[in-house]
């Protein structure tokens, strides 16, 4: 997972920062529980029971998620993803943009530096938009979706997101080319 991150800081620094944030989030939520417990002990106990039951239900999904993360770390490296999203990739470019979006981990803004570099080196607007849109599909998290929504819904979800990522790319390219044509016309 960390190998797929585009951030330019050292991976130890990045992981340390991310870990601190995650633990701080968990501690904040526990603090919130503590606050609720003081106000309404019965409610917080009921919520905690709900949490334990949900956690037990989700244990198999956690196992599958770990397995998928392991496979990603084995086969998907950040430089490989970046190299394949070039300007002249054509049909392959679409595949790699969408695949890269699906494989990209972490918050969207972590990917902005890499995407800005690719854009400055001639990456098509359509591929950029497709990358950002296809991030809605997260393969390691699909076990959770399968668990909650079922296989038919999950397949429909993935297919729709991928189709709409193409539509988003094409429309965004049309919008940006129209705006640049307008700028040229204004200058003339």
């Amino acid at each position: 997972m960390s190998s797929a991150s585009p951030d330019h800081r050292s991976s130890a620094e990045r992981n340390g920062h991310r870990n601190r944030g995650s633990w701080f989030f968990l501690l904040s939520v526990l603090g919130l529980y503590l606050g609720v417990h003081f106000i309404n002990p019965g409610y917080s106990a009921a919520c905690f029971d709900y949490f334990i039951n949900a956690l037990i239900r989700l244990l198999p999904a956690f196992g599958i998620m770990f397995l998928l993360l392991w496979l990603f770390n084995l086969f998907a490296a950040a430089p490989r993803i970046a190299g394949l999203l070039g300007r002249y990739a054509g049909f392959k470019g679409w595949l790699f943009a969408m695949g890269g979006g699906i494989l990209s981990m972490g918050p969207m803004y972590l990917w902005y530096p890499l995407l800005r570099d690719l854009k400055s080196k001639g990456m098509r607007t359509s591929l950029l938009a497709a990358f950002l849109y296809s991030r809605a599909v997260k393969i390691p998290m699909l076990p959770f979706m399968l668990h909650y929504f079922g296989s038919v819904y999950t397949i429909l979800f993935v297919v729709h997101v991928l189709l709409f990522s193409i539509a988003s790319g094409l429309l965004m390219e049309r919008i940006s080319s129209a705006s640049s044509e307008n700028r040229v016309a204004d200058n003339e």
Partner: protein
Amino acid sequence: MRKHHLIKADRFNVLPRRLLNSARQAGLGFISLLPIMLGTLLLTSLIIPILPQLFEGGLFGQHPVIDALTGAGIGSIAAGQPMISYLLGGELLDSGVDLIAVTALVVAWVTVGVIQLPMEALVFGSRFAFCRNLLSFLFSLAIAFMISGILHVFG
């Protein structure tokens, strides 16, 4: 000859090392995600019991279009990992929220970023950022209705 054997033995050593390194990285990634997942699940568990009151208050459970708009609106404002939207969406669905609203929320959660909009505008230009987010918001509604419609017809 001996050198050839050494190279061959080296190749045999590389694969287990790569597998172990990947497992280690996956483990570290998993551990770094674990507090977020547990925290999200805890937070969701704290919200779920008050959902019926929210229904009574009129947040969800109205017209499908309003539900979808509410879901997409919440998803657009919320900034977080896709995993959180899957977990929250699943728990909302289990507690009776309509599939249209949940799908709109899940799709908008990742594709629309109102909080990140200024940053996106700085990096890619304001026109790109605004149009992309607006399109993504509309697409989240379209996807929600399409999936729900397909499931309604064929399910």
